[in-house]
């Protein structure tokens, strides 16, 4: 072990080469927790918990979503083409296809985001902060599978530079970085992230007619393996999509009423997540497992999650009661089968930096997100999902909520002080 350590230490670039040294330091602290001791004045022993562990917990909680997302990219693709339509059929093809789509997104997300992070860390002369590990793991999961890599890079660069580094780095940002990158795509390149045609990977639409993409070298590589194993293969692609196929997400259909949704997707399918959508947000039970893990480890705030749920239920019920149009009449509980509510609540709303920082504030913040998200979902004709905008909106208001909570604490203390002074 010590010789291994010596070999690594030999690699250390001189301190003058700041970028290289920061890079080395980033990887070294990934491998080893440094030998720094407490200096004082202050505590002499410190908790085992640090930011790296906090962040990796979130990444671990996301793993089920990653696995299922990989599968679902492939599954939706083949269902659209009318092949391997049952859950287990062509499992290897679906996973391979999903991997071919998801891996580049993940790599680009990490390279672009961490690259910017490294650059700024070197520039400011501090260690690399871990915040982006979570952001970079979240971003691929909230994008449509076919998003062009250059758009992804651009959106991440925009979000990390303007959303985070401009404010001073991890812990200083006002809005959620992952959602900022998504909202950038949403406003700058709306066709890649809205409508009925973007949620299923590998379909090409020409003249109103959709066909499957022609497979490239990656699929051929997997075919070579699958052939050797005697399994089903991708083939050349270019197959026409099935007649019954509609690329619409449940939410896209829900504006015409719940019957339109169930005509295409059963509640079971929506619950387990074998529906089109952003990569990681479709499977409710797996997200809930992740959320429970975050609650059990105390990483994410259960207050925010619970109050989001209460807010969403409340607002969905209110719309049921109003019942003006078909969307409002969708029974309130079915709102939790559709869209990205669970993912947004578990992983986006609970970001500690952009959420309210006081416990009272968290209840208000969560409830407002829940209520606003449903309002946007139902009332906004242009875009049938509300969580991204609701969370970003409440991110901006979180400091204000905290301000009032803290002010009330100050007032309370002044009252005691005034009473004591007499």
């Amino acid at each position, binding site marked *: 072990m010590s010789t291994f350590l010596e070999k690594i230490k030999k690699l250390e670039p001189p301190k003058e080469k700041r970028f290289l040294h920061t890079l080395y330091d980033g990887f070294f602290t990934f491998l*080893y927790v440094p030998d720094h001791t407490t200096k004082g004045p202050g*505590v002499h022993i410190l908790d085992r*918990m640090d930011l790296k562990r906090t962040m990796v917990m979130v990444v671990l909680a996301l793993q089920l979503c990653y696995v299922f997302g990989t599968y679902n990219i492939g599954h939706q693709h083949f269902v659209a083409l009318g092949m391997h339509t049952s859950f287990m059929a062509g499992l290897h093809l679906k996973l391979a296809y999903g991997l071919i789509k998801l891996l580049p997104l993940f790599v680009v997300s990490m390279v672009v985001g961490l690259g910017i992070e490294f650059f700024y860390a070197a520039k400011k002369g501090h260690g690399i902060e871990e915040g982006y590990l979570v952001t970079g793991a979240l971003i691929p999961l909230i994008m449509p599978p076919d998003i062009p890599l250059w758009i992804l890079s651009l959106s991440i660069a925009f979000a990390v530079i303007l959303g985070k580094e401009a404010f001073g780095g991890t*812990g200083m940002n006002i809005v959620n970085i992952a959602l900022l990158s998504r909202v950038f795509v949403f406003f700058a390149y709306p066709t890649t992230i809205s409508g009925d045609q973007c949620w299923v990977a590998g379909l090409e639409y020409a003249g109103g007619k959709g066909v499957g993409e022609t497979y490239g070298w990656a699929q051929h590589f997997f075919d070579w393996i699958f052939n050797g194993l005697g399994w089903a293969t991708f083939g050349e692609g270019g197959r026409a999509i099935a007649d019954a196929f509609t690329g619409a997400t449940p939410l896209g259909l829900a504006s015409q009423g719940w019957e339109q949704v169930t005509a295409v997707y059963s509640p*079971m399918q929506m619950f387990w997540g074998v529906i089109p959508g952003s990569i990681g947000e479709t499977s409710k*039970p797996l997200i809930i497992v992740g959320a429970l893990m975050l609650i059990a480890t105390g990483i994410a705030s259960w207050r925010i999650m619970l109050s989001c749920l209460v807010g969403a239920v409340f607002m969905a019920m209110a719309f049921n009661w109003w019942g003006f149009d078909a969307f409002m009449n969708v029974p309130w*509980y079915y709102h*939790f089968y559709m869209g990205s509510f669970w993912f947004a609540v578990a992983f986006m709303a609970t970001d500690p930096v952009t959420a309210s920082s006081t416990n009272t504030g968290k209840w208000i913040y969560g409830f407002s997100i829940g209520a606003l998200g449903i309002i946007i979902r139902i009332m906004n004709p242009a875009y049938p999902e509300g969580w991204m905008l609701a969370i970003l909106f409440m991110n901006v208001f979180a400091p204000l909520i905290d301000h009032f909570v803290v002010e009330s604490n100050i007032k309370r203390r002044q009252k005691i002080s005034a009473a004591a002074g007499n």
Partner: protein
Amino acid sequence: MKKGFTRLHLITSFLFLYQLAQAQSPSGSGSSNFTMLLLAIVILIAFFIIIRVSDNLVRIQAGKSGDDASLTPLPGVRDLFKKSVPTYVKGKYVALNKGHNILLEGSAKGPVVAGNAKTFAIQPPNFRGVSAIPKVEVEVGDTVKAGDHLLFDKKNPAIKYVSPVSGEVIAVNRGERRSIASVVVLADKEQQYRKLDAPNPDTCSREELVNFLLDSGGWALLRHRPFDVVANTNDLPDNIFISTFDTAPLAPDLNVVMEGRGAAFQRGLEVLGKLTKGKVWLGLDANGENPPSSIFTEAKGVAKCWFSGKHPAGNVGVQIHHIAPITTKTTAWTLGVQDVATLGALFTEGRFNAERVVALTGAELKQPKYVRTIIGANIGELLDGNFANDHVRIISGDVLSGSKTSSESYLNYHDDQVTVVEEGDQLEMFGWLLPDLSTPSASKALPGHHFPDTVYKANTNMHGEKRAFVVTGQYEELLPMDIYPQHLMKAILTNDYEKIEGLGIHELIEEDVALCEFACTSKQPLQQILREGLDMVHEQG
């Protein structure tokens, strides 16, 4: 104490597994079950809210009309989770739910044995508020009696700092910029005491009493809140607070420490009663199965308040917050129990009896124990031959708020504990990733959370690097006070004076936020930040 999984864990996992099982059943009834689950949760929440709101309304109404609020049929939310009150508790009782006990190896075991320290020192830096270069009244080579004046602060010449022992002054050590670091006395074998003519506290005036304390060295035992400084001579504190238990890691059991010193303690309390315009409060420990020592529970002429809860429930600052919070307009004095005994002995024995029972603790000691010695004892002499390991850090005080020292140095004036922990200057491979059961943690994310009785062997490694504030709500879980520590820290860092004062900096000193600093995910130096804020407010106010 909870063991292993809590009930909440079990219920949530059961509900979820049940759901999974149902959803996979061939009939496909899973989705409707999910709906039913949602429905059930919503109905429960709605039911709960209605009941709570109506119950609270009843309570408010009861409060207005002066009825006993406990007459409502429902227990309050807090009462549901409250531990049952121990039978020995009588009178005011406060249950604190927040906090965390850090269990470390190497707690001191009785009985108390004689310590073998020979040199003793008074260290001016121990007295906050005293100028860096006080006037030293003795020279090297002088012989002094216990209770003779050693030095005084030129700003406050009336307050005398006296020698804890009789013997020869062997050194006046200087620190940075000629500041006085310590005045060292080599103790005689037979201790001689300066004879003190104590006035009778029951009959004399407050002024007489104050003058006697100033001259006899008793005044230096008083600590003034806010800011934790030496009390001012013209101070008339609103209340005086004494915590009779210490919840810090490896802290001495004050029942053991005070054995046989009941008379002096009681006399000390009576004297303190003359010095305040309010009351002398004792904070009593309601955590144990047995009541604390009768020296505390049967003390007369004082107000008592029982506290149960984890660390920092034993901190006097936390207790003050729940009895009579310090504001911008009020002040308080605090003392340790042994300080009270020393104060009382001025009257019962007519001499400055600086006896201290000190707990020598820590996993790196062969034999952690209690020793009977005197204020300012040399640490090396106290610990002589007791080290199990030589790569250690010696701390005067506890691991959370004590100060780093060495075996050449001396016990701090107010400390009753020495802790020895291993230096942790070693790399830890994937230390941030592996589930670790060997390091203490207040976090639920580590396996130790499920084994709350685990005793740890801590070292001084930082277990990570300093980062910006990211995690929220962490400090609030560990500080049982109505204070927002993170907002306060940020206000101090941005010099937002009004907010610093408004958020209650007057109620805090370093030891109160020490646990938050220990648990801080971002490894922020909270005690240092707080002190900067305290100094700033002190200077301006």
